[in-house]
């Protein structure tokens, strides 16, 4: 298999980010080594939101132009988004355990919202798998792609209101408002490298979708 320049670049950037994060960024005073997971957790969350935002945009434009390329992009972006959301959901509890003493914290609005995000886009993937006709699949998933994005603020708001009305003792809030400059730079680098990784994954997944659809069209033509 040919590795594209984008994948190579993204891979190198992510490895570089981790090297910098582990060896060349100072330890956070209170959290120690556990805080290093921050450089995976935060950029993964950013990429997840970017992915689902782009799913909604591609879905909206698809319903307007009916261009199958937009559907393939939405499909690819949703799958990559679910992968990054899964990373958020794994790294979140791993980070929370040493800091808060529990794996799961219902008062952490962002983590809980991310869980629901994961449910929405897993059902998006299941929906796609449950429809035979490519055209119907594209329309239905575009509708869900848009409604899912509309839902996110409502989930966030309801989880937030819930958390503020039922305050829990918060031991230490890990996302420090003011990061030392070294950590901030590492964070910025991680955001860039994860974004590159997102585009590399989406491109690979998109190319796969193109080949799959071409093969299906050939098969239908022969039949």
């Amino acid at each position, binding site marked *: 298999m040919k590795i594209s320049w984008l994948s190579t670049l993204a891979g190198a950037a992510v490895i570089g980010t981790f090297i910098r994060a582990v060896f060349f960024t100072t330890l956070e005073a209170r959290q120690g080594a556990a805080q290093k997971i921050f450089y995976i957790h935060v950029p993964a969350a950013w990429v997840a939101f970017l992915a689902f935002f782009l799913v909604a945009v591609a879905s909206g434009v698809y319903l307007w132009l009916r261009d199958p390329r937009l559907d393939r992009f939405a499909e690819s972006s949703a799958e990559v988004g679910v992968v990054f959301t899964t990373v958020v959901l794994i790294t979140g509890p791993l980070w929370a355990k040493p800091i808060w003493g529990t794996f799961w914290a219902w008062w952490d609005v962002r983590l809980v919202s991310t869980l629901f995000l994961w449910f929405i886009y897993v059902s998006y993937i299941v929906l796609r798998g449950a429809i035979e006709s490519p055209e119907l699949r594209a329309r239905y998933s575009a*509708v*869900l792609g848009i*409604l899912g994005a*509309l839902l996110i603020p409502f989930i966030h708001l309801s989880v937030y209101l819930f958390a503020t009305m039922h305050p829990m003792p918060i031991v230490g809030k890990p996302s420090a408002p003011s990061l030392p400059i070294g950590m901030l730079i590492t964070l910025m680098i991680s955001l860039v490298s994860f974004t590159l990784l997102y585009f590399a994954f989406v491109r690979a997944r998109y190319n796969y979708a193109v080949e799959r659809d071409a093969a299906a069209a050939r098969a239908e033509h022969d039949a």
Partner: protein
Amino acid sequence: MADILSAAWLIARKDLSIEFRTRSAFFSAVVFALLGLVIFYYAWDPTAVTATDLAPGVLWVIFTFSGLLGLHRSFGVETADHAIDGLLASPASREAIFLGKAIANLIFVGAVQAIAIPALALFYNLRLGAVAGPLIAIAILAAIGLVAVGTLFSAMAVNTRLAELLLPMLALPFFVPIVIAAAQATAKLLSGRPVIEVGAWLKLLLAFDIVFVAACTLAYPFTVED
């Protein structure tokens, strides 16, 4: 607009008379709701958790699940003999078809609530009289949001390979804000807090209804083959 509403009402009446004739979905939804109320009571230790604490969550979780039972059937009756083609080929607009189905579902869900809420008061020994007004407002707002999203996904789910299996999976994430808001607001009411404290939740429900009634009505024509 008048055309849309009169066609919608005609379609809703047709759905309700089908439901009235068969009564299958309504009875199963009511029995499901009552069974749920009873079973949930045994899921907690009554000496540790009071019925007042328990009731709101039980009510709204059961409400969403029994609502799904009614929503399953909504577009099922249209696909059996492709009756939906008859609707789509008629002068009724697609928006009218969606609203008609949604109105029928709303009446269905409302009727289930009208039995489930008094039953909750009976089984959990609650005095709902004093909070009846705000509670009905919560019930109506919750039902509208649930039905808007549920009707759209019912229309989509019937055309997939998984059919009714897919509906809960698609719809439940969308019911999350409804359940949280309705249950929290009900809890506040039952614990005797002033109605003003419920305001934020009511606003959330209202905003949800406005956004999703509009979005789902606009989205429905895209789910129809054209």
